[in-house]
Structures are given as structure tokens and as C-alpha cells.
């Protein structure tokens, strides 16, 4: 059990009134709230040992470098990577995917090649490939979904038989449907065919134990701000052998071994991919977020969310105006529920809920191809995290009554 009283004390924002009411934050799949331990750890960098890393030789610089690298090590352990050389700090999951596309992709993809994405990808796992496709002319195959909103595994197995497939890049947990994809099997199957695999873990890493020793993807990306960390810091995991052979992403300081007028040589991974002064405080803050989650335990986080998901699905299915998009059972899915409410536009529902201190997402969730595929112009979405309670879900249900009243929805 998660000690809710203790958790509430760690998130100052939850104690503040929102439009005169207790804040009900149901938008963690968008960005999560930040505990004071993370904020304090970042403040400490600015207030106690504010110096640049890897170059300042005085004690402050040593301390900053130590903390930055300690955060990298924490993240390595958290996701079960072999070496901290495989952990690259980026701005977010989007930048991590762009990095892979612009380095590995640029090196390995060309005319006649193909990559596999799914129709449930976030824009961040579509657009970087489309940008590269314009230049390199490879084909992008989109996997379809079952009626329930799950990946079509048979189609996947068929598609990867094609000799021209060089990469499979798939979302681990859908940010709209909540569907959890079997990253381990997807990777195993692709590897048997010699295909490289990228898994987008932006929605999975914050909510469940992810172990790359089991999943064995070649690339794995996630972001700090969805896992209690600050904004502006993300992670790219890359298998060391691949990182060694990849060209740099951005050029500048820290990523070079030597710079001459005639040319330069590159530093080793991960530094080869971290040009310029990075988000030092952000990386250290993300390390503190990992500490926070590990102190509670990812198993407990997942169990807590699973209970909330079951409770929410039960309550929501009982309301005739609610139309759930995605799997309606709680198995193999994350604590994310997309839905529509009667004929009221999601933006209006979210605004009326917002006025009652209830934060939900409305729109296309950066997954326009998925919504087009489902023939839904826009939807609402609620998502839960360790600080949510059953009471939050009751408040949501209560809040929807005002929507009904405002829009004169007939029963």
C-alpha cells in the first residue's frame, strides 16, 4: 500500500486550492507532478555546487560532475542497462528518437529499405522518421490494431519476414489507449530476423518496472517530466556496440576527443552524443525522481495504479454518456483511459472540469494517425499516478454532472 498522506505531503501543489477546490490532477500521462525532493535536489545544484561538468577542475566542478554522473548511474540501474555508457541524456523522448533517426537511421536506412511503426505511435515516433524518409526514400509500414486497440501480432510477424525491414520502432504503452505492448516478444521476434528495435518507453518507465535485461531492445527512450522529474531532460538508452559505430548527433563541446582545423575526432559514448553544456540540474533532478520512485517501489506504484484503473473503469462503464476508447478491461494496460462524453466536445468537457479543479487532457494527444484510424476527431483522457486516489475518480464522475447540466445533455 502506498501511504497517501506521506505522498500528499511530498507534492506541495496538491495542498494548494485550485479554483477554490482541492486539486484533482488526472493528466500525468501528459506531465507528472513533481515532489519537493526533486525540486530540492535541483535547488541544491544551483545553491551549493553550481559549476559546469567535465571541465571545471575546482571542487564545485568535481561535485557537479559527480552528481551528474551519479544520476546517469541511477538511471542505468533503474532500467537494467549493462553500462552507464549506454545512457545518453537528451531533452526528452522526442529528442532521443530524433537522435536515433539522424545518426543510426541516416547511416543505415536508404532507398529500398523499410521500417515498421504502428498506427498507435505518438507523433514523436512518426515525424522524425518521416523527416528522414524525405531524404532517404525508405518505406514506412504502419501496423494496424485489433478492434480492442491492441497491436496485431500476426500482422507483425508477417511484416518482419520482409527482407528490406531494417528497424522496428514501437511504443511500449499507448498514451491514448493505455495498451501495453509486449516489448520483449516484439524485440525477440525482430532480432531473429536481424532487425534493430527501438522501444518508446515514455509512458511505461514512469509506471512499471522496466528491465532492459529482459526486453533487450537496441534503443529505448523515455522522458523525465512524466516520471516525477523536471522538464527538459530525457534519456536515450542505446546498446553500446551500436553507439560506438554511430556518428555524432550535434557537434560542439564535450562530444569531441580532439579538434583541429582540418577535422575532429569524437569522444566515446555517451559523451559523443551530449554536445555542449547539458541540462545539469535536470539530470540531477531526474536522478532524484528515480530515488523517489525506488524508495516507494515500482511494484507498489503499478499495483496502486492498477487498482485505480479497475475502480475508474467500473465507475465509468456505469455512466451511459461515457464512451471509452480502447480496451475496457484492466488487463495488460496502463492507467490511462481515453473517452468521450455524450456529444459534448472534449475541450468543453475539460474546461468545465478544469473550473472545478479537475485536470484532464482533451485533444488528439499527439496521436493524430491513431484518432483518424479510430475515426474520433478528439477525445478526453484521464491518467493516474501514485498520488491519485479513488476520491479523485469520484470527483471526476461528480464533475461530469456539471457538464451534463451545462450542455443540457438528455439522458
Amino acid at each position, binding site marked *: 500500500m502506498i501511504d497517501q498522506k506521506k505522498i500528499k505531503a511530498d507534492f506541495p501543489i496538491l495542498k494548494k486550492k485550485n479554483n477554490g477546490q482541492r486539486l484533482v490532477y488526472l493528466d500525468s500521462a501528459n506531465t507528472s507532478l513533481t515532489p519537493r525532493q526533486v525540486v530540492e535536489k535541483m535547488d541544491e545544484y544551483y545553491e551549493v555546487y553550481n559549476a559546469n561538468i567535465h571541465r571545471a577542475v575546482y571542487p564545485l566542478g568535481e561535485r557537479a560532475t559527480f552528481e551528474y554522473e551519479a544520476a546517469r548511474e541511477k538511471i542505468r540501474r533503474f532500467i537494467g542497462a549493462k553500462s552507464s555508457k549506454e545512457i545518453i541524456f537528451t531533452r526528452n523522448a522526442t529528442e532521443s528518437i530524433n537522435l536515433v533517426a539522424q545518426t543510426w537511421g541516416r547511416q543505415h536506412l536508404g532507398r529500398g529499405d523499410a521500417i515498421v511503426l504502428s498506427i498507435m505511435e505518438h507523433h514523436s515516433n512518426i515525424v522524425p522518421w518521416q523527416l528522414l524518409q524525405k531524404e532517404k526514400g525508405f518505406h514506412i509500414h504502419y501496423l494496424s490494431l485489433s478492434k480492442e486497440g491492441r497491436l496485431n501480432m500476426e500482422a507483425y510477424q508477417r511484416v518482419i519476414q520482409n527482407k528490406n525491414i531494417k528497424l522496428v520502432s514501437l511504443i511500449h504503452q499507448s498514451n491514448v489507449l493505455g495498451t501495453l505492448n509486449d516489448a520483449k516478444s516484439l524485440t525477440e521476434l525482430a532480432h531473429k530476423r536481424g532487425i534493430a528495435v527501438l522501444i518508446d518507453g515514455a509512458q511505461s518507465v514512469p509506471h512499471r518496472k522496466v528491465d532492459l535485461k529482459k526486453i533487450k531492445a537496441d534503443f529505448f527512450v523515455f522522458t523525465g517530466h512524466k516520471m516525477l522529474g523536471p522538464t527538459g531532460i530525457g534519456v536515450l538508452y542505446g546498446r553500446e556496440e551500436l553507439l560506438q559505430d554511430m556518428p555524432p548527433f550535434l557537434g560542439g563541446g564535450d562530444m569531441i576527443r580532439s579538434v583541429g582545423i582540418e577535422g575532429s575526432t569524437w569522444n566515446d559514448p555517451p559523451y559523443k552524443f551530449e554536445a555542449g553544456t547539458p541540462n545539469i540540474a535536470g539530470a540531477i533532478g531526474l536522478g532524484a525522481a528515480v530515488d523517489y520512485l525506488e524508495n516507494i517501489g515500482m511494484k507498489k506504484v503499478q499495483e496502486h495504479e492498477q487498482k485505480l484503473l479497475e475502480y475508474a473503469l467500473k465507475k465509468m462503464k456505469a455512466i451511459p454518456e461515457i464512451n471509452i476508447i480502447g480496451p475496457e478491461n484492466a488487463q495488460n494496460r496502463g492507467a490511462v483511459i481515453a473517452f468521450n462524453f455524450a456529444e459534448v*466536445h472534449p*475541450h*468543453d468537457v475539460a*474546461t468545465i472540469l478544469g*473550473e472545478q479543479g479537475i485536470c484532464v487532457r482533451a*485533444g488528439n494527444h499527439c496521436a493524430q494517425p491513431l*484518432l483518424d484510424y479510430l475515426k474520433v*476527431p*478528439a477525445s478526453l483522457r484521464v491518467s493516474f499516478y501514485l498520488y491519485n486516489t479513488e476520491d479523485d475518480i469520484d470527483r471526476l464522475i461528480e464533475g461530469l454532472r456539471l457538464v451534463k447540466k451545462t450542455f*443540457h445533455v438528455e439522458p
Partner: protein
Amino acid sequence: MSNMYLDNIIDLYKNPLNQGTLEAPSVTYRAYSPVCGDDITLDLIIRDGKISDVRHRGVGCAISQASISLLTEEIKNQSTDKVLRMKPDHVVKLLGIELGPVRLKCALLGLEAIHEAIGKYHSLAPLKGGIILRTSL
């Protein structure tokens, strides 16, 4: 509660004004908001520099739908020059509600569509008037 969802807004959402298509529009323009999925298509008939008729269709939230209803009423029989000078403030005044920066975008999608449609018409219209061009999306 703020006053965002006054009954007149809900009324316009449920019973929009000037909804539909025109037989032979001078110009058709579609505006889409990638953030919220609001989608407005406009047909305008422009004669002698004036908007003689207008229709809209598409999907959107109550704010964007109420806004386009009121705007299409407002611009009928007005000169395109005058309509092009119409400012965001005017839309807020027409709606008579308070809007934050995020929802303001919903309210302004219609005005943007009207301005773009007139711009498209001017770029397509021949210098010597008389011929009306029909344009598709």
C-alpha cells in the same frame, strides 16, 4: 463557475447559424487546429469586394462553433477590407465571455479561417474582375 458557458454559447453550439455549404462559392477554405482537432470549412461568395454570403461546416468545441456562428453573421454584406481589419478583441466582444490564452485559440480559429479565405480569394481572383473562381480544398 466562470461565465464561459453562457446559455447563448450553448444555444449557438446546438443550433449554429449559417451552417452548410454554398452552391458556387468564390472561395472555400479549411482551417484545422492540430492541437484540439477543431476543423472549420468556410464557403464565401464575394461580389464587388463584399461578402454576399457565407456558410461554414465542420467539428469543433462550443467556443469555436459559437464564434464561427457569430462571425459569419457579422461579416455578411461587409467589405472584405473591413473584415480583414477585424481584430481578435472583436471576436471576444462578440462572444461576451472571458477566455484564457488556450481557449482563446478556439475562439479565434473562425476569424483566422475567414482572413485566410479572403487572402486565398485575392490571390486567386484575376486582376480584372468579373470571373469568379471556384476553388477546392
